[in-house]
């Protein structure tokens, strides 16, 4: 597919982003000409886009279009995949995180991630949350750590449900609770950005609603990027939406604009369910 034609001017990296609805939002991450290869096959073709701070950006697109791959570039999780190669610049605070001298371990403490399937460690609820602060030395002593655990659980809206059983195994919680535990675990290392890869796809509608509520609250502090297969979810929680297709960024814009008035034929086809 030819990437140069039919692209909206928004994603052309030579042009500056038009102002978005939330005036307070400045770009937190700026991606330029990202290409990702798995061995010989290219999964992402020259994508440039930026993510505003204190806002939720949704990545949508049909299965296999490279949403997860692109998301994993933002905290260099692709480094852990044997044959995966990333090209291009990703600027955070003016620094290219793909530079050789950037420590991916430190980067990941600034860019948290929540996965599709809840994956609590087989440890206690407390230790799940305390794990990150411990390895990064964020707490001075036990009381400080207790405070961090409580604050993270409160922000993730889980505190009231688990405060009496912090030492119970995290794997014993319900799926929705586990996912909130994972969000709390990510928050506990005080990241600046939170990446979520289909965080609700393993959850029922009620648990999903709780997570969405939570995302809406977290938006006030973090830059959030969420991958979702649910148009409704994207419409509900995000302020900006990017539509991917076959490894290309087809359209990027304000969520309301993408869903009411898409510029691209392919975007319209996808959100109206005509393919995908």
């Amino acid at each position: 597919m030819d990437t140069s034609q039919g692209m909206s001017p928004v994603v052309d990296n030579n042009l500056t982003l038009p102002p978005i609805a939330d005036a307070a939002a400045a770009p937190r991450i700026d991606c330029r000409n990202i290409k990702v290869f798995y061995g010989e096959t290219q999964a992402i073709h020259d994508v440039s886009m930026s993510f505003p701070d204190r806002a939720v950006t949704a990545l949508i697109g049909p299965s296999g279009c490279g949403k997860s791959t692109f998301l994993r570039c933002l905290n260099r999780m692709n480094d852990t995949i044997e044959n995966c190669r990333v090209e291009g610049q990703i600027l955070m605070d003016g620094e290219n995180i793909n530079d050789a001298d950037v420590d991916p371990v430190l980067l990941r403490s600034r860019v948290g991630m929540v996965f599709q399937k809840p994956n609590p460690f087989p440890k206690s609820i407390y230790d799940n949350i305390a794990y990150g602060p411990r390895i990064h030395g964020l707490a001075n002593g036990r009381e400080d750590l207790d405070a961090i655990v409580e604050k993270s659980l409160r922000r993730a809206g889980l505190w009231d449900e688990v405060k009496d059983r912090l030492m119970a195994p995290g794997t014993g919680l319900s799926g929705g609770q586990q996912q909130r535990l994972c969000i709390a675990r990510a928050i506990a290392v005080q990241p600046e950005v939170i990446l979520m890869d289909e965080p609700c796809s393993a959850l029922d509608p009620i648990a999903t609603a709780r997570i969405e509520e939570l995302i809406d609250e977290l938006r006030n502090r973090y830059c959030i990027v969420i991958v979702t297969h649910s148009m409704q979810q994207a419409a509900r929680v995000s302020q900006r939406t990017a539509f991917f297709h076959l490894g290309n960024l087809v359209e990027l814009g304000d969520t309301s604009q993408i869903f009411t008035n898409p510029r691209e034929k392919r975007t319209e086809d996808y959100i109206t369910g005509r393919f995908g």
Partner: protein
Amino acid sequence: MLQQLGQLPMGWLLIALIAVFGSAAFFLGRTRAERLLETSIGRMHSRPNYHGYYVAMCTVVPVLLIAVAYAIFADDLTRSQLTRELPSSFDRLSAPELQSYLDSVRMAAGTAASSGADRVFQAITNRYLELRGFVNAATLVLLGALAAIGIFWSQSRLRPDFRARALVENGMQLVLFLCAGVAIATTAGIVFSLLYESLLFFQKVSAWDFLTGTRWNAQTNAEFGALPLFFGTFMIALIAMLVAAPIGLFSAIFLSEYASPKARGWIKPVLEILAGIPTVVYGFFALLVVAPAVRQLAIWINELIIQVGLSSEPVLAAQPTSALAAGLVMGIMVIPFVSSLSDDVINAVPQTLRDAAYALGATKSETVKQVVVPAALPGIIAALLLAVSRAIGETMIVVMAAGKSARISMDPTSDLTTITVQIVSLMTGETGFDDPKTLSAFALGLVLFAVTLAFNVVALRVVKKYREKYD
């Protein structure tokens, strides 16, 4: 005529007959079912092949039973009749002598031309052949009759709605069950005989003395305090695990977390070769290489201690065979048990857990140490338990390199003996079957069996629980 029948190669004949009857029955049954298919209205319950299998089953099973009975009883039957007919001059032969005489008769009967032997022998051989010929003929007739009955009876049952398929299914199940039954029955038999002989032993020596006594002198039927043997077994297993646990575990971690697929591709098989080395080879490696080295080292340490002035006489026993030598080599032997199983359980830890740790900014070694290994811990413990049970039951290495003195000594360079070593030395050489000496070997075997069984059961339960957690 009977004599020629007696020389029939019955083994081959029976196999051939089973094959012939079986396939004949199959084709007859199938043909008949096909004819039914043509004439019947509507569908048959089972496809013609299943009718064929059913008829074959009904034919082959009785034939097979006859063949098995023949294999077990034919020779005994012939012999007992022959013994009854022997001239009275044979009465003075003892039972074993008579048996070996009959063995040679049977040998001679097997080879066609047995000229040169004396006349009586010749006559007896001919009579053996006649009797055997009678048995053979009777068997063949019975077999033919049963096969014929099987074929005709089962064929007569075939109808369009006959549930041949279900019956064949049941037959298959029965066969599989019987095979499993053989294994179970054998195990039960062994355990039973172990228990029985041990009980006989405990009638002569009290179980309490056996389990807690500290003096072992079984060769003279004198003292049966097995504690030194338990101690030696434990000591050597402990040394082995001190070697195998860290090396096995770390190599498993290296293999599953750090090695590139290519390195893993050749390191894992090489580690598994360790498991394929015969234990006797480990044994002479221990005896010829490790034991002398241990001894040298001990002597050197002794000298050093004396020179430094910490002691005025040698501290270590520095014997030519030692617990340390046997334990070290046994440790090497069980490395693959630890590494291979640990590698499996570490690989079974879901990738999502590793991703979770990496995404929180954990380094690789933090992830391994704090997430992967704890998650795999139950499985790793199970691997260690299996290795311990293997080390406790191991025989060849300790027989060759551990020594024979039953003593309780903390000095790893002194020679110790183990349960398995003692069982070997009690069962080899001159033994009466109901000496306490021989019986004590069964009691030792029982203890060994109980301990290794316990280890295995615990290990398997741990593994099972662990499996359930990640399914």
